[in-house]
């Protein structure tokens, strides 16, 4: 569960990237975070993950205050950044083991997890190579594997499906569903409305740092016209701002 209460963030003290943002992402749900480019999605995610400090407001993850107990809060989630071009000079296996060390994953568990993740994402044959040699989709997969290796209860994914081939995309969506159904939290941002429509239990639409809408897909449909596509709703919402 992720809770943001009246969170503010400005850059250079003038432009408000995020303004009075209050958001609750409950357990057992896949929560989609939608918005046009530059709406404040990534800024919000960066504040939740501790990459940026909010100017005001509180953020808690599974009830742990991210400002007061940052290390404990960081152990609650796994984060997949929007660019997978990280740790390029490490071999796949070295990266996974590095992440396991960062999150204190015991030896007995980590080997088994790495193996099963590698099988599921069809990455067994590339673990011995440097990430540098991977394609974009493979890099995306190794970053996701690095997150899953410590089995976090909260998943935070920034545009996770970009660049994945259909099979891996299917696998990830399947895993997101399994994770939410086991009573845990999945929070992800996306541009692809079809994905949000098919996958999410609830969505929030953000524009210019403010939440325009937050609720279940069904409520949203009822709120607007029953048969209107999400695309149309999205365009209407973000246009009038």
């Amino acid at each position, binding site marked *: 569960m992720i809770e943001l209460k009246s969170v503010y963030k400005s850059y250079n003290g003038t432009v408000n990237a995020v303004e009075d943002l209050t958001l609750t992402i409950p357990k057992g749900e896949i929560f989609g975070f939608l918005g046009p480019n530059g709406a404040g999605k990534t800024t919000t995610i*960066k504040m939740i*993950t*501790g*990459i*940026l*400090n909010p100017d005001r407001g509180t953020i808690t993850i599974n009830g742990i205050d991210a400002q007061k107990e940052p*290390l*404990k809060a*960081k*152990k609650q989630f796994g*984060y997949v*950044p929007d660019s997978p*071009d*990280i*740790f390029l*000079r*490490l071999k796949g*296996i*070295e990266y*996974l*083991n*590095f992440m*396991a*060390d*960062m*999150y*204190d*994953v*015991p*030896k007995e568990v*980590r*080997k088994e997890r*790495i*193996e099963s993740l590698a099988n599921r994402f069809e990455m*067994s*044959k*590339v*673990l*011995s*190579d*440097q990430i*540098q*040699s991977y394609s974009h989709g493979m890099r995306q997969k190794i970053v996701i594997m690095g997150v899953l290796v410590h089995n976090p209860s909260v998943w935070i994914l920034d545009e996770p499906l970009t660049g994945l081939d259909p099979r891996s995309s299917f696998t990830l969506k399947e895993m997101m569903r399994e994770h939410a159904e086991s009573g845990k939290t999945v929070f992800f941002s996306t541009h692809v409305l079809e994905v949000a429509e098919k996958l999410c239990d609830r969505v929030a639409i953000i524009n210019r740092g403010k939440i325009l809408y937050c609720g279940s897909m069904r409520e949203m449909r009822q709120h607007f016209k029953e048969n209107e596509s999400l695309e149309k709703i999205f365009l209407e919402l973000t246009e009038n701002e």
Partner: protein
Amino acid sequence: MNKFLLLTRILLKNGESALSLGYKKKSRVPAVLLPFLLLLAMLPFSFMIGYLVMNLYDSLLPVHQEGTILALGFVAISMMIFLFGIFYVINTFYFANDIETLLPMPLTSAQIMGAKFTTVVLYEYLVEAIIFMPLVIAYGIKSGSGILFYLYSILIFLAIPILPLILASIIVMVIMRFTNLAKNKDRMRVIGGMIAVVLAVGGNFLFQYYSRRSMSAEQLQELFLQKNSLIHLVSSLFPTSRFPAEALVHSTNLQGLANLAIFMGISLITLIIFLFLAEAIYLKGVIGISETHAKRKAYSQEELASLTKESSPLTALLLKELRFLFRTPAYFMNCILSNLLLPVVMVIAFILNSGELSKLPDLLLRFLEGNTGFVQSIVFLFSVFLGSANNIAATAISREGKNFYVNKYLPVPYLTHIWAKLLSGVIISLIPIILVIAALIVLIHPSVLFIFLSSMTAVLGILFASLVGVLIDLKYPKLDWANEQRAVKSNINGLLSLLLNSLIAGLTVFMMFRLDVPAWTGYIVLLGLTLAYNLILIWILAAKGEKWFGQIEA
């Protein structure tokens, strides 16, 4: 030609050259001014050279060998440019990953090469000016030369770096042409860089060795009888250096003009040959430079078990730092290989001169043991230099670049990240120290006590230098770079750390020299000082490190 100028301008603007020292656009100091600031910082050094030249002139004038000063200066400049050039050429021609953006454009490789070469030459002018200007001005004043002397000087100034740089470029291009055939490009490029440096240093030594051997005492005496005849001897180290020297010495008559013409001609011809050669081999060596080797082979159960061992976050982070330093060609060349260069040169020099050294030990040993305080302060200075010259600590944060944010979300205290970075710098800086101490043990058999004290001083010196570097980089990280080469090569933090470190260590040595106390009292003062430096810096790091690290938002 237009495309060539355009490309040169873009490359300079884009900061691919070392001229822009890693400043962002919004920086208070315009990037254009930085080279001049650097020159200003080197002014004391230039004055020293001018002073030396004037003194040399006075003592060489009675034997009519004053022209030798010019030859000596030009040889030194050429050598320096050649050695620096090897690094710059590898960096700009091969490690600045702009080539994949340039290849799809309608440019010939001579244009690309010409533009890249020009950026390197422009940088070398900066380095050259530090020695060339005081040399020529001091000589000009002393000899009362006319306007022609200075006009010739300007032409010579412009032409001097071309030859040594082309030499460096050709060596590098040929090596890279062959290393590019290998599958594992990263590794081969690193090896290629090493071969180039070894060839350059080794060739240099052989040349010196033979040119010293080939001259008998009678020949020397005979040489002294002719006016400025030593120019020939001195410039045998870098043969083309005699032409500019002769041109300036005889600037008033036709002989000078002829020599100038020969020199300019040689430079022009080599430039043309170079461009043809570049057309023929450069692209073959650089295409596919960013491809990486991949085996695509699954691990066995046993391999997987041994590769998934558990370690503490500090160890894991340290290992990550070291892997990045060794595997990234630009880091390996600029941080690790250059770090080894000085001690290797020293050790080779020791060995080549071991014949003469063998008579020394007793005297040297007595001095070493008798002046512990002063000698150890020199060891301190040397280790501080080694600890900061490799730039590892002073670019530790900067090297993370745009991926710095990753450190922020990992559930590890920021201080652990900082310690890991500090340790990586300390460990790599210790390698050359161990090499030099090993060479000393073999060559002059110092006492166990001397080795112990020196090792301790060296560790303290390296720790001190690394702490200064990490603190500077922590406070002012330069995360906005386009390729790895810029993170280490054109990062002002490296220069700042080197200057600050040299200043503090230099003052310490100066003080020890002036103190003139008994050997052991001196040593205790030094030990107290170096311990205090380190403790203060560690205290600052522990108190502020976490906060500064947290403030970095990229």
